[in-house]
């Protein structure tokens, strides 16, 4: 078979609109998700049960319910609380909260990755808890935080496709529209996927740059001492000698 590229070029406008909406939704959800994640993570790290328990429940709820189900809970549930939002807004809110649960776990892990003595030496000299976090802990946790947060951000871009089920005119929805008009699902969904692919690659590249700026880690290669075992244990091409 051959790919009929005219299907893509003829509908480039719709794809572009969809891509823009997907970027908008993702960026909004990633930023607000990160902002919500910090207080959630701090609550979860609290030694007091009354503080940590709600945070644990929050995180576990979002991590154990599929986003497609969560989204429809928000869609049908928010009106119960007197909140009538546009599907797009509902989707962004749901995606942001969903992401915040994952981000919160990353923030928590990143804070815990910094040795305890760092917080202690900051507190001992008189810094408040929040100042110690900001000045001493956060700069040190980025190394751990950035790669993990990149993966979650990419997941959110991909998860945003589910907003199509609320007829939010993002990329997947536009793909379904074009597919309904052209009956060329293979071309349409391949094109849609390729756009997502490009978006997530862009996001990954952006984060990689910021990681390098902050002093990236050395790549851990397979030691040449274990050349033989590397035949089985390494999937990377063998180093040339």
């Amino acid at each position, binding site marked *: 078979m051959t790919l009929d590229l005219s299907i893509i070029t003829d509908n480039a406008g719709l794809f572009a609109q969809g891509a823009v909406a997907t970027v908008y939704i993702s960026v909004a959800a990633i930023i607000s998700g990160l902002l919500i994640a910090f207080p959630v993570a701090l609550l979860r790290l609290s030694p007091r049960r009354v503080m940590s328990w709600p945070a644990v429940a929050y995180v576990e709820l979002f991590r154990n319910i599929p986003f497609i189900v969560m989204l*429809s809970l928000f869609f049908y549930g928010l009106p119960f609380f007197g909140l009538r939002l546009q599907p797009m807004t509902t989707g962004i809110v749901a995606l942001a909260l969903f992401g915040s649960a994952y981000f919160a776990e990353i923030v928590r892990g990143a804070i815990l990755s910094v040795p305890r003595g760092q917080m202690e030496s900051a507190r001992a000299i008189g810094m408040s808890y929040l100042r110690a976090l900001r000045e001493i802990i956060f700069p040190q946790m980025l190394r751990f935080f950035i790669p993990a947060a990149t993966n979650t951000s990419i997941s959110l871009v991909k998860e945003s496709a589910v907003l199509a089920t609320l007829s939010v005119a993002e990329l*997947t929805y536009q793909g379904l529209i074009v597919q309904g008009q052209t009956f060329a699902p293979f071309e349409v969904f391949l094109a849609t996927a390729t756009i997502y692919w490009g978006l997530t690659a862009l996001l990954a590249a952006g984060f990689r740059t910021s990681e390098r700026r902050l002093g990236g880690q050395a790549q851990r290669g397979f030691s040449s001492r274990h050349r033989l075992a590397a035949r089985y244990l390494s999937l990377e091409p063998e180093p040339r000698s």
Partner: protein
Amino acid sequence: MDFSVEAALAALPALLRATGTNIAIAAAAMALALAGGILLTILRSLKIAPLNLVIGVVISFIRGTPVLIQIFLFYYGLPALGLQLDPLTAGICAIAFNSTIFISEIMRGGLADMDPGPVEAAIALGLKARAIWGKVVIPQLLLRILPPLVNEATIILKGTALLSVITVVELFRAAQQISATTFRPFETMLAAAAIILVLNVLVSQFGGMLERRLAVRRG
């Protein structure tokens, strides 16, 4: 409109029945993905340059695109290549294929962290590649990557709800259908969410238990 607990409870039996489909899909997809993951990992270890290049592109594609689109490609797209699958089969294949890629990536990480000693010993003993993989590498690897595998299982289970979009009548689709007749979508969705939440927590707990068991046996 007031919240109706009765509506949520009334939906439970039908939802629970539909959940059987999710479990079956997840089990099938997990089995396929595990087998696929092992095969792909061995294939990658052969380090055939052009092949690994293609595999690399496929991995990047699967990791960089939504599962939802991958499901559409399997269900709506494959007929263009002359392969018509029913929704259930297409869905299982899409999820399994996606998971194969992620499991292979988990395995790559696990292999790099493994102790080279036993493998070197096996090579020194003159074991055949088949035996080294089957008797030395894979068993150790599976033990080592059990936690991320359990995590992958919960991801698969959550992913089964996406098959509703290609008309597979699983939990979420069933919830939509019930909502359409009872006009109680929120209550019904809440019941569905509760079911899958419990199921996921059970899988995680079971994984944790298995891990402790094996840790004891190893220790």
